[in-house]
């Protein structure tokens, strides 16, 4: 038994097995695309995709995949071909690199819990923040590469939004780190086993939630893809799969953002011991529990998308600097006070 665990904890084995997570996340991104349409349709009291067939229009997914794979790949004549080709790699790479550090639940055997993550290191939260910022550069590359005015406007909006929300996001994460005295996401998740941090730091959660929505570019903050003025944002010149890669990266970002939210504020996968003690079922129960929470968060994000109009870009940046930044500092002070009270 121990030897198997040891084998599984070999970083090489872990890394290669972890690649399966990419497949799973990719697949759940596809599911999320469908969910977004279907759930959105429910909110708007219409049927949604139903023409292709399958129960609940599920075959639509396959139809979409076929479409993406068989569309002609065009590179505009005026494009900077190198940047144009590299951009989706950077955008998708940023999403993939995030998957490494996120634990997707855990398997509990006896008193030990083994998080399902490709790797585990001390500063994974910081790492996630750093890697997710890379996609902004990818989007800039796409815009500059495709030499399209709408794309350029979109890329600059994207950067403006990033510089507005990265700081509050960072400070709200410090608020968590101060309580746990760790930046390891597994430890942060486990530290919440009696009490979720959303109840401890409601302000911090609000800041984090809004910032991560902005980071993901979901609707009140999707100025970079406002089709009413910027057509398709950075992806205007992209066709078929090249665009599809960017789309998937976006949805992967959304899922990973939701995972992060669950891990930081909704208690991760932790379950009371009497549940995890049940043989076999208890072993995997944390995974289901984690997935259920992530699904709820994803649904909430989708709901927000269909329920709100869009901010203007200057209003977005104002919100980040003038409201969220002070709030996040306030939350930090509150977290320090709590940390001193309980930690010392």
């Amino acid at each position, binding site marked *: 038994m121990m030897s198997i665990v040891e084998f599984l904890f070999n970083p090489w084995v872990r890394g290669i097995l972890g690649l399966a997570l990419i497949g799973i996340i990719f697949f759940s991104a596809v599911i999320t695309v469908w969910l977004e349409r279907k759930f*959105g349709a429910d909110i708007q009291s219409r049927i949604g995709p139903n023409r292709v067939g399958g129960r609940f229009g599920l075959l639509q997914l396959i139809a979409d995949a076929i479409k993406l794979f068989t569309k002609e790949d065009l590179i505009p004549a005026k494009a900077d071909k190198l940047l144009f080709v590299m951009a989706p790699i950077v955008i998708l790479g940023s999403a993939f690199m995030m998957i490494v550090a996120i634990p997707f639940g855990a398997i509990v055997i006896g008193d030990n819990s083994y998080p399902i993550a490709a790797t585990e290191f001390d500063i994974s939260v910081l790492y996630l923040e750093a890697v997710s910022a890379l996609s902004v550069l990818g989007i800039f590359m796409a815009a500059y590469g495709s030499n399209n005015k709408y794309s350029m406007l979109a890329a600059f909006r994207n950067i403006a939004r990033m510089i507005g929300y990265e700081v509050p996001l960072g400070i709200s994460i410090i608020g968590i780190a101060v309580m746990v005295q760790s930046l390891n996401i597994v430890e942060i998740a486990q530290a919440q086993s009696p009490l979720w941090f959303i109840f401890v730091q409601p302000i911090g959660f609000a800041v984090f939630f809004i910032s991560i929505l902005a980071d993901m570019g979901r*609707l*009140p903050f999707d100025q970079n893809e406002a089709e*009413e003025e*910027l057509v398709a944002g950075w992806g205007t010149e992209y066709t078929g799969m090249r665009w599809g890669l960017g789309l998937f990266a976006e949805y992967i970002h959304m899922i990973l953002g939701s995972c992060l939210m669950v891990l930081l504020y909704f208690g991760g996968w932790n379950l009371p011991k009497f549940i995890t003690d049940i043989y076999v079922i208890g072993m995997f129960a944390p995974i289901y529990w984690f997935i259920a929470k992530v699904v709820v968060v994803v649904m909430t994000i989708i709901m927000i998308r269909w329920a*709100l*109009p*869009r901010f203007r870009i200057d209003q977005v940046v104002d919100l980040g600097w003038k409201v969220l930044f002070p709030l996040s500092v306030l939350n930090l002070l509150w977290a320090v006070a709590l940390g001193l009270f309980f930690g010392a």
Partner: protein
Amino acid sequence: MEQTIAPSEMLLHLGPQHAIQPGPYLLDLKLRGETVVDAELEMGYIHKGIEKILENKTYFQGITITDRICYLAALTNNEVFCNCVEKLVGIEPPQRAQYIRVIMEELSRIQSHLLGIGEFSTDLGFVTMFLYMIREREEVLSLIDMVTGSRITHSYLRFGGVREDLPEDFAERAMSVLNEIKKKLDEHEDLYNTDKIYLQRTVGVGVLTAKIASDLGVSGPPLRAAGVAFDIRKNEPYLVYNDLDFKVCTEKEGDIFARIKVRLDEIRESIYIIEQAFDQIPQGPLFPVGTPYGRRTPVMRVPAGEVFCRVEDPRGEMGMYMISDGSDKPYRVKIRGPVFPTMQALPPLIKGTYVADVAAIAASMDGCTSEADR
């Protein structure tokens, strides 16, 4: 607009094929960063030559053509055309026909405003509201469909009357639908009035002052939102609007919020008008008795003369100038549509705003390119 571009400026075409547009037109923007420095409007991409076509069709055939001026206001376009011919011939529709016309035109106004508000909502990224509006518009279209037999191009009006009488239980069914819409409208307006993002995006943005509006000849909701109580139904009543009680909805601010508010209010006013019309509608013939005019008027010669008529379109003042030389076809038809002047107000409005506001402002004017280009 000057074609010279400073190195830090960008000349961006919005259109002719763009998501903000109900039809193709070209909006050239000169941008400095996100700010619109200069704007130019170019129209005429879907000129259909309707005025010329009308001159080459008999009067009766012309009715069908006027449907095509604007697909959202087919009934009012019919009305202005029939009005002109009726004035030239010197007949007046009987009371019942007039009431039916009022009912149908107000229904048409309701569906047009619903679509206008909905389209505007999409341009703020508020797709759900668009679908809610469309859902309610479908109900209204079904009502119109019950009477006219078609949803978009009705060809319902005839010289001196209307083509069909109302179905038997139309009043009850219409009122039940309309009351439902009124209830939903309260909900929607509540949402519009309280949503912080919506208010940030609309209040004080794209202010059309009464002066600019009247200088450019803007009419309809954009003008009324600027505080000018101008409504042909009140100022120069046609049909039986004199006998009906309604108020002209105005707002003072002239911004996007006010324009949408005026439209929402006008839907309520229209419902109120329809309610009264159902109460007051008399029994009687659909066409003036003792005249040859009826559902089918194959060849008619209209006495020579000229006439100008105007009605209140959902988008404003719809005028038609017609010269007859005594033959079976009009000698000259000139349409004064409400949208062309409204569109002219766009460049001054969007100058100095942000790119994101362009979509919102353009949609809040509720232009119908089809009608502007004719």
